[in-house]
């Protein structure tokens, strides 16, 4: 029973308390770049979720089963980049064959994820926090869901901003950055939760 509660708490903390964008400030580029429309933001979020979950699994395996036994832990960054790049490529091929409609919807976002620091971030954090395989994958999946929540919320706010009266000097990116800052402060409210 205690174990289940722990897992649930871990999930909540990944999504809200330790939100990747609002408390770790990782993955800010797609967060600002692809949050113009809720639809595209959700596509991007789902693609990131998919890749982050699998990347956590594979980076764990590469780190603990190859790098640690050989004493090459200093190579984690470059090895993870290799893993992520190959993985994204594989996922793209797989989706093209298995689900052309999903491939069309994710489109250009898939290759973009290769350079998303949130994916590399989750792999490195898994190592530095010392999570086991189960928690690594859980961390990957639910951190990514946190990213999804953040980017969809941001897109919703930005869609409203489109139609509202904003001073000339604040139009476009300035108001988006202010919004992101306010959202980050609101998410700080979750910090006492877990």
């Amino acid at each position, binding site marked *: 029973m205690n174990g289940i509660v722990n897992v649930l708490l871990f999930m909540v903390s990944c999504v809200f308390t330790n939100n990747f964008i609002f408390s770790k400030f990782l993955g800010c580029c797609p967060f600002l770049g692809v949050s113009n429309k809720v639809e595209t933001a959700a596509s991007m979020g789902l693609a990131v979720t998919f890749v982050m979950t699998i990347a956590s699994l594979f980076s764990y395996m590469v780190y603990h089963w190859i790098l640690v036994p050989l004493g090459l832990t200093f190579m984690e960054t470059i*090895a993870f980049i290799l893993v992520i790049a190959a993985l994204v490529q*594989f996922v793209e*091929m797989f989706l093209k*064959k298995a689900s052309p409609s999903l491939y069309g919807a994710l489109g250009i976002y898939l290759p973009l994820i290769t350079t998303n620091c949130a994916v590399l971030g989750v792999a490195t954090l898994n190592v530095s926090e010392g999570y086991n395989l189960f928690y690594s994958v859980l961390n990957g999946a639910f951190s990514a869901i946190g990213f999804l929540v953040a980017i969809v919320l941001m897109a919703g706010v930005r869609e409203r901003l489109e139609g509202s009266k904003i001073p000339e000097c604040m139009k476009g990116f300035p108001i988006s950055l202010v919004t992101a800052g306010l959202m980050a402060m609101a998410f700080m409210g979750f910090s006492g939760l877990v």
Partner: protein
Amino acid sequence: MTILYAGVVLGALGVLFGLVLTYAGKKFHVEVDERIELVKNCLGGANCGACGYAGCDQFAKVVVEGKEKPSKCVPAGEKGIKEMAKIMGIEDTAPEKMIARVLCGGIHGIAKERYHYDGYKSCAVAAGIAGGPKECMYSCIGLGDCMDHCAFNAISMVDGVAHVDEDKCRACGTCVAACPRGAIQLLPASQSVIVTCRNKDVAKFARAVCMNACIGCGRCKKECAYGAIEVIDGYAHIDPVKCTRCGACAEVCPCKCIVDLIKQSVGAMERV
């Protein structure tokens, strides 16, 4: 020793992933009609959207599916359309080569300014403010909406009036749609004598706003031996079918609004 291990491990990982990806590439290979790629290479390639499809990729697809004729892609040109028809094994001829012409000669100093515009650089915006920065209501505003829309970089602004580069223009027509004044029209490329004014006002008012405005005097109509010119709506129209491109009308035009492009380019060469 460690450095050797590091190199070997990373190399091995790279090779492993490479092999997996190669295998996956074969396994998950999606069959695509190779003609799509061939047709795509013949198209304009600028995703201008003049055909009505989302981009060149999609247009190539519908051409291969046989739902659309290659000649719908005007920017492909005669050569590209012929090539596509050959690939598809169908008969299709290119429409007459057209070029976008700016029908305004109201350059700085010739056209009267209503006010000095110093706002957001868009013709559509400026046209909405007290009738536009130039007095003439039919003029090119010269802030470059057409230039921004042109996918082939064929338009530049010269002395406050759009100028189309004949070699670069592919007649897709995006500029025609972008101009808030309708000052750009697609005309046959062979039509070298052009009335560069669309001012519908009577002579006195037309002349008052622009020294190059057509006053509808009908001098050109009298001069034309082929009956190709009519004055309609207060300005001269040349019928490209009857016109022989002799340029006699351009010589007699008192307002210099009929332009003979061939003589103009010869003159420019002589000056050089």
